[in-house]
């Protein structure tokens, strides 16, 4: 790139991050409310995730700021859910063994990076077919039907591939092996 090409104004990126957060806020709160079933807490977590997005953008460029924002928010919510499970003594239920590894107030930026590394590694354990289905669905936003048509599969087969692949990635984060 030519050195004479105009650089964007220094606060253009900061402005863009602020706008991304503002534009996503409603959706983020709705998502967190579904996760936590608590509107006040959903707003608090969305705010905290926004602060961390802004702080992280100050340190380095974020390639996927929206995914980063939702990921940080999700990890904050996972923290709260774990605490709630302890508080409510739900933990005795026993059919979902939590992988743990989340200290209260853990460094969520490091956690996000570690999650990305674990998911990358887990991707390599998937069959090529499962991996293609997963990428088509989750990255390119295709429906089950579209993927079924393009890969010449039954929609139900696509759903099963996706379910197993996502569960496998989820297990990589929860620190557990898929049964």
């Amino acid at each position: 790139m030519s050195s004479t090409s105009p650089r964007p104004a220094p606060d253009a990126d900061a402005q863009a991050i602020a706008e991304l957060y503002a534009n996503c806020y409603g959706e983020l709160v709705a998502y967190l409310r579904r996760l936590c079933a608590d509107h006040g807490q959903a707003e608090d977590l969305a705010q905290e995730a926004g602060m961390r997005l802004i702080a992280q953008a100050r340190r380095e460029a974020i390639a996927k700021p929206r995914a980063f924002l939702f990921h940080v928010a999700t990890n904050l919510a996972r923290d709260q859910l774990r605490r709630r499970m302890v508080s409510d003594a739900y933990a005795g239920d026993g059919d979902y063994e939590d992988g743990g590894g989340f200290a209260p107030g853990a460094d969520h930026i490091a956690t996000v990076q570690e999650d990305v590394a674990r998911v990358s590694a887990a991707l390599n354990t998937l069959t090529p077919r499962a991996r293609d289905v997963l990428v088509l669905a989750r990255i390119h936003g295709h429906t089950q039907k579209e993927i079924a048509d393009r890969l010449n599969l039954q929609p139900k087969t696509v759903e099963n591939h996706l379910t197993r692949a996502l569960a496998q990635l989820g297990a990589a984060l929860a620190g557990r092996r898929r049964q």
Partner: protein
Amino acid sequence: MAMNPTESLLQQAARWHAIASGRDLSADESRSLDSWLAQNASHRLAYADICAAAFALEQTQAAAEPIRAALPTARSPRPWLRWGLAAGAPLLLVFALLAGPRVGPSWQNWNSDLYTEIGKPLSQKLADGSVLELDTDSAVRVRLSPERRDIELIRGRLAIAVAKDPNRPLHVRSGDVDAMAVGTRFVVDRGDLGTEVGVHEGIVRVTAADGKPVDLGAGQQAFVGNDSGATRVGALASNDGWTRGMLSVEQMPLAKVLAELDRYLPERIILADETHAAMPITATLPLDDPDAALRALAQTSQLSLRHIPRIAYVMR
């Protein structure tokens, strides 16, 4: 929609994501997902694990590579993916982050005896006659026994006028720091970096994790950092105007004043340009109307305010 009970919880959670691929859930599906989540906290956690995996997936290198299966041109990527590609340039603008995270207040509130919401300090007379003033966004546990009086500061800041009772010392604990008094008035402020104890009347004995007690007299304060655990003693600088609903500052750096106001606002405050952080401020601001206080402060310092959801930028 019925979930297959023989699937693991992670698989059940993953199936919801599989169904929602490339489309929104129908109203019926959405309701049944909500009722599945409501069945058990472990369902929520499993669902959140899958969400985290899906967001992590978007950030992997693999997500940026073309897929191997030969396909006709896929639908154009979602808007945020395009947005993400445009956001490559490093940020030059330096922000001042004024205060640390507000982590888990609701969880702390459940474990407290008395807590305050943001912007709603309160004053409470305890059973022994001591008057406890709890500042904005703070939480304490209180235990009064025949031998001693214990207050644990879980979060935030308190001031206490201790009722005299030589046989029953009053301890305020903040993490590893213990401040002990018989009859006096002092302030304990638990921040992200450590605990500050300021004495307005009487004598307070402060003991940090190292176990070595330090006696503070009126007009003195001590700060114990979370990292070092060392006790630094100095002249009383923090004022207790907050107990009267006012923030009076003289030649205080803008960043510190904003950090004080940040405690009272549901919004978080961000100073957009760090070069303004040291700007000296002399002002008296109403803490019972922190929005007005922030506007007045911005005006005084000739900066402007920009609001995005629950975050206020102070900028040129």
